[in-house]
């Protein structure tokens, strides 16, 4: 995973709450066995509406998505994160995120910046009236803040320490975990014998 210190670029405002991962990437796209090539499917149904945010001039180059509460709810499909990244987004700013989506984002290196509802309103006001596509927005992982200097807006965002550390360092999570390989082996020795194992035969003894 690539390290991310900050994301700087233009933004798209998607002023809806409960944006579910079925909207972000519809099921028909989940048949792909790669991690790439999902950008064309991003918000596929909503993009059929010419008025949709992603169809506005400048949206194609945006790196930051500003959205409503409970972003990424529903299906666990990490393809939603890959689709956002494939389209060009490197950060999503919202008042809250669904748990699985947030976990997937951290794993894939997409920044999820959780900003208070009032502050989201400030950001959206600063980015409205067609200014989003040209605004210079920074999502600063190190400082945990979102800045729109042209509008004089700076708002803090919440991100767990560990998530921030992983983004800043670009760590391979499995590599970090394997430092504890001995602890895992030790744990396995003490697991009760009745716990099930797969395969055709059931365990017969304790």
């Amino acid at each position, binding site marked *: 995973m690539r390290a991310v210190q900050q994301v700087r670029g233009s933004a798209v405002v998607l002023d809806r709450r409960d944006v579910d991962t079925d909207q972000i990437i519809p099921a028909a796209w989940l048949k792909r066995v790669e991690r790439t090539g999902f950008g064309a499917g991003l918000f596929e149904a909503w993009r059929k509406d010419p008025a949709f945010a992603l169809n506005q001039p400048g949206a194609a180059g945006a790196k930051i998505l500003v959205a409503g509460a409970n972003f990424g709810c529903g299906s666990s499909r990490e393809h939603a994160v890959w689709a956002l990244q494939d389209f060009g987004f490197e950060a999503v700013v919202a008042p809250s995120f669904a748990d699985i989506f947030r976990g997937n984002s951290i794993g894939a290196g997409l920044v999820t910046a959780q900003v208070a509802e009032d502050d989201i309103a400030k950001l959206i006001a600063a980015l409205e009236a067609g200014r989003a596509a040209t605004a210079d927005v920074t999502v600063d992982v190190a400082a945990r803040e979102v800045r729109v200097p042209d509008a004089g807006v700076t708002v803090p965002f919440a991100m767990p320490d560990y998530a921030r550390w992983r983004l800043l360092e670009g760590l391979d999570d*499995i590599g970090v975990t394997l430092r504890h390989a001995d602890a895992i082996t030790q744990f396995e020795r003490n697991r*009760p014998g009745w716990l099930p194992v797969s395969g055709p035969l059931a365990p017969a003894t304790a």
Partner: protein
Amino acid sequence: MSARLFDKVWDRHLVASPEGEPPLLYIDLHLVHEVTSPQAFEGLELAGRTVRRPDLTVATMDHDVPTKDPLGPISDPLAAEQMARLRKNCEAHGVTLYPLGSAEQGVVHVIGPQLGLTQPGMTVVCGDSHTSTHGAFGALAFGIGTTEVEHVLATQTLRQVKPQAMAVTVDGELPAGVTAKDLVLGIIAELGTGGGTGTVIEYRGQAIRDLDMAGRMTVCNMSIEAGARAGMIAPDDTTFAFLEGRAHAPRGAAWERALDDWRSLPTEDGAAFDREVRIDAAGLRPVVTWGTTPAQSVSIDGVVPDPASFGGQAQQQAAQRALEYMGLTPGTAMRDIGVDTVFIGSCTNGRLADLRAAATVLRGRTVSPGVRAIVVPGSARVKAEAEAEGLDAVFTAAGFEWRSAGCSMCLGMNGDILSPRERSASTSNRNFEGRQGPGGRTHLVSPAMAAATAVAGHFAVPADLEGAR
């Protein structure tokens, strides 16, 4: 503080709690399916890693399998490729696979419990959000993404920040005609779509205790629709009776030792929760969703709500947009809304008990002309057991299509989809825009209501059909 079921399961799986990192949790059972695993196996191989515990990993094919002619040629080359990948990955890494055509194939959350692989006190994960289903056994079970699937394959552990614990207590008995599906839709309406975010819900109270395992699985299954990480129900004699004798349940002395252990799991009296919600079962009714989130539901006796009746601008806008998408007018009685398609199946309501509930309504009745009605058993075994009881004959005599096991129209990956503006009554778990096909309009209901609706041609409960057999 007295210990809670969730803490007990959590604590016994802690492998390490390194300073500054989320704790490392051991995973007892990792369920795998064709759609969220290929990139994980590829990542594993690119890094030169192997599956640490193939014996704690079980795979099946469910999301995009054909349900009409499962043993015939697979017409969708992408789906065929995904299934071939899974087969190859499982062979290469020694993972047990129940492929299409196997007697144990089926929706991943139906087969785990059916095989007795899901047991109290375990940790269960799967690259699928409805893994919360397995919490019905008093297991801690949750959905993960593909990067985490790779992490579990490689290490048999997962890093997790400990969620908060919420208690949802349902007091009293469910009124006649109110099912587990109505109960959980009622809970979700109370909590809201994001109300459970960051928490594990323990369902408690008499109405929960009274549920059979199928009903408990239906309730835990939909925890994720309130945003919760997982749902749990304390194991009891109902749980043990379900498990005893299953293929992977312990036997003999091991069974006795396991029972002693499982009996120590329930939350102790006086335990406090981070949040507590109480619901009176007597106030619950058979419900149907009207909108595009599972929280947007109303009693069958109710009407399509007026968006202005909701508090807050964001909720009003969301309701307005949902009604436009669903093609509904405020004030319309739910019973006056006609349906084009009825789908019975999914990991929420595709078990034998669900098929029995629907068949009871359908016996001696026929599907309303013009309604397409499909029943897709949750697993090959559910299908076989239903056929042994003659349920297939009841469904087909009523005019339902009797299919083979898979996710099918729950998410419409296999070509079982709604057309734009087509309206369905569905026993699945998500009514998101386009979930069952682009432009399709999904209403979530219980199996009994789905069957009654198929007969009436519009939303109905079984009692509406009395005398019309």
